[in-house]
């Protein structure tokens, strides 16, 4: 039953929180806080400073190289990037300070705050071993609300991360009703296993919903999942609806006043997603509640 021993919650459990100082950040901290208080884990806030080595403002198209061209060019580039690096560091410091204040106000002390040079997805991989849950904002710094775009990093993180990823919505509200998008696949099983072991969702109402043409196998495993969860003391409802997954889930979430969606992420190959699009990406983009993803 323990498909992933790392998600068993113990005293060492750790929530990795990725922040970029965007307007999603306070909500990301609140979601992390909620999870940390339920799991009794510590919070690790991480801000990434992207190493951009762009050509920058070096406007030299002279194509002429003189004495010690390499050394002079290097000095010039180093100075340029040093100035930018310092600005980025100052900004990062402010962001982390804000994060610290946020948690201080909530009187949460079990906190590590750090800035790292590099790309987010890589750093998450590096921290993989001692992470149990990753919290990230739905949209980042370069968010474009009109087009409902995902933050540049969200998709990469979800794709590369082996831990559950909690994608925070714009604002936090208490989690009372939880919808599980159940398709009988391995990620969905992983989600059920997680709930069996973790205290994160104890006391919430669980709706397990499958969408699409009825399939006896899926029905069967849905029933089994429900009974397993009931045994653990959850209140569950077992539901089935017809239609397009994206639309049905969105509608259900609106009608039933759902607070959080649990789903498996990126079940299909990339090539298929290129052609038919990805349910996961659409869901993250369109629904306005936090989503907990399992891969």
């Amino acid at each position, binding site marked *: 039953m323990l498909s992933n021993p790392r998600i068993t919650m113990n005293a060492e459990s750790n929530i990795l929180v990725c922040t970029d100082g965007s307007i999603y950040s306070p909500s990301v901290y609140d979601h992390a806080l909620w999870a940390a208080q339920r799991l009794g884990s510590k919070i690790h806030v991480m801000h990434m400073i992207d*190493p951009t*080595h*762009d*050509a*920058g403002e*070096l*406007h*030299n*198209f*002279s*194509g*002429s*190289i*003189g*004495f*010690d*061209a*390499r*050394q002079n*060019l*290097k000095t010039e*580039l180093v100075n340029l*990037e040093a100035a930018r690096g310092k600005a980025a560091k100052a900004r990062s410091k402010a962001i982390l300070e804000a994060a610290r204040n946020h948690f201080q106000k909530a009187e949460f002390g079990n906190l590590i705050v750090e800035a790292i040079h590099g790309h987010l997805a890589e750093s998450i991989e590096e921290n993989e071993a001692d992470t149990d849950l990753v919290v990230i904002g739905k949209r980042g710094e370069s968010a474009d609300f009109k087009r409902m775009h995902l933050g540049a990093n969200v998709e990469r993180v979800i794709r590369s991360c082996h831990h559950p990823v909690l994608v925070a919505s714009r604002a936090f509200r208490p989690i009372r009703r939880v919808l599980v998008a159940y398709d009988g696949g391995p990620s969905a099983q992983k989600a059920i296993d997680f709930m069996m072991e973790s205290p994160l969702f104890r006391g919430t109402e669980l709706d397990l919903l499958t969408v699409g043409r009825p399939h006896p196998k899926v029905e069967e495993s849905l029933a089994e999942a429900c009974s397993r969860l009931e045994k653990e003391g959850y209140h569950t409802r077992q539901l089935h609806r017809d239609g397009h997954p994206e639309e049905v889930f969105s509608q259900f979430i609106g009608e039933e006043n759902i607070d959080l969606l649990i789903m498996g992420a990126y079940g299909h190959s990339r090539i298929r997603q290129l052609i038919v699009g990805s349910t996961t990406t659409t869901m993250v983009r369109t629904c306005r509640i936090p989503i907990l993803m399992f891969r």
Partner: protein
Amino acid sequence: MFSKSYFKEWFHNPRRDIIAGAVVALALIPEAIAFSIIAGVDPKVGLYASFCMAVVIAFVGGRSGMISAATAAMALLMVTLVKEHGLEYLLAATLLTGFLQILAGIFRLGNLMCFVSRSVVTGFVNALAILIFLAQLPEFKGQGWLMWTMVAAGLGIIYGLPRLTKAVPSPLICILVLTVVSISLGLGDTLRTVGDMGELPSTIPVFFFPDIPLTWGTLMIILPYSIPLAIVGLLESLMTQTIVDDLTDTTSSRNRECTGQGIGNLVCGVFGGMASCAMIGQSVINVQSGGRGRLSTFAAGIFLLILIVVLGDWVARIPMAALVAVMIMVSIGTFSWRSIRDIKVNHRTSTIVMVSTVVTVVATHNLALGVGVGVLLSALFFAYKVSRLLSIDSELQEDEQKRTYFVRGQLFFVSASKFGESFDFREVVEQVRIDVSEAHFWDLSAINALDRVVLKFRREGTEVEVFGLNEASKTLVLKIAKHDKPGASAEVGGH
């Protein structure tokens, strides 16, 4: 390979990459033409090579933003092959070079670059600059003061114009102005032009297989050229890669670059181009102009082709003086002038390594030999330096009957004799203890030296105890040493 990051390597910086590509293309033309002439082939061979190499390496190279094309280093190695056997054999040698380089990539020989020290790299770069410069001198022969004036004027434009504006490539202006002056004053008759040097390309390159007999004899002709071509090509490419890595503060795959260079040369060979490799000067120009992505290399190749195919008639009328001026700029920009100033500061051995590399290359016109000498010298100097990290002290105890020797440092073939000489065999004591807990025995010679010392003491009737061998040394001693085996005798010392 075709991952998101590969995509990013292409398109993260498109506008600047394309501009930089155009600037670099201008610096490619003189080198491609000048070194085709050195190699003894038509300029079109070098120009086709530069186009093919730049475009192919943009896709398969290991280092984005690095420029590869027909180079001086390679051209100098093929002179006699072209003279004795002709162009077809050069193309065949190019194919074989590509094949060898792919093998080098597959067998990860790119990792061997770690043996090339900073001083060797500096020596290589300086030697290359000197070769590029020397290759320009024949152009002055029998040309008189007019040539000197034109080149001086060209250099004046190249280095003067950037003081006014850095928005236009000064080599372009130099070429334009000198061409206009040459045509309008009718200097085309007295001054050599590009058109005088041989056939220029009039079409895009076409595919053809070199027309040579596929025999053992052919292989024996081209192999002695292909091996140094492959080595020099990879050396210059990997060194350029280090330089670009350094300038842009990013990393890239050495072995992938080896394979990429190989594929590039295979393509060159079947499209009528000569063997090529990465170029230090032009890569620096690319980075300086803001080129970072694969697109910049690709753009350089495409612009080069457009320039020569579309403007071919005009290219033919460019006076050689203009190209010589651009090549002198490349050689000045490639040379590490600071290395001359640093001679005062650097350790004597690094200077010797650097200068030996330069001298060997300039004498043989073979960069591979220079690097070989440089690497060998650095290894010898290093071995010597490490051998000096050996100290042996001793202490007399207990009624002058027991002496303890403390050996500290690295014991290997270089330091072995010093080790043997550091013991006093004439002193009469009952017991000698040799404490080697802070020493490391690296090889046969070290173990042998220990053996000799122990047995020599025994012959004097002294009891010897060796203690404190570390684990690595212990395995070696257990395997090879004789003093600790029954029946140790005087046979020790035979090695």
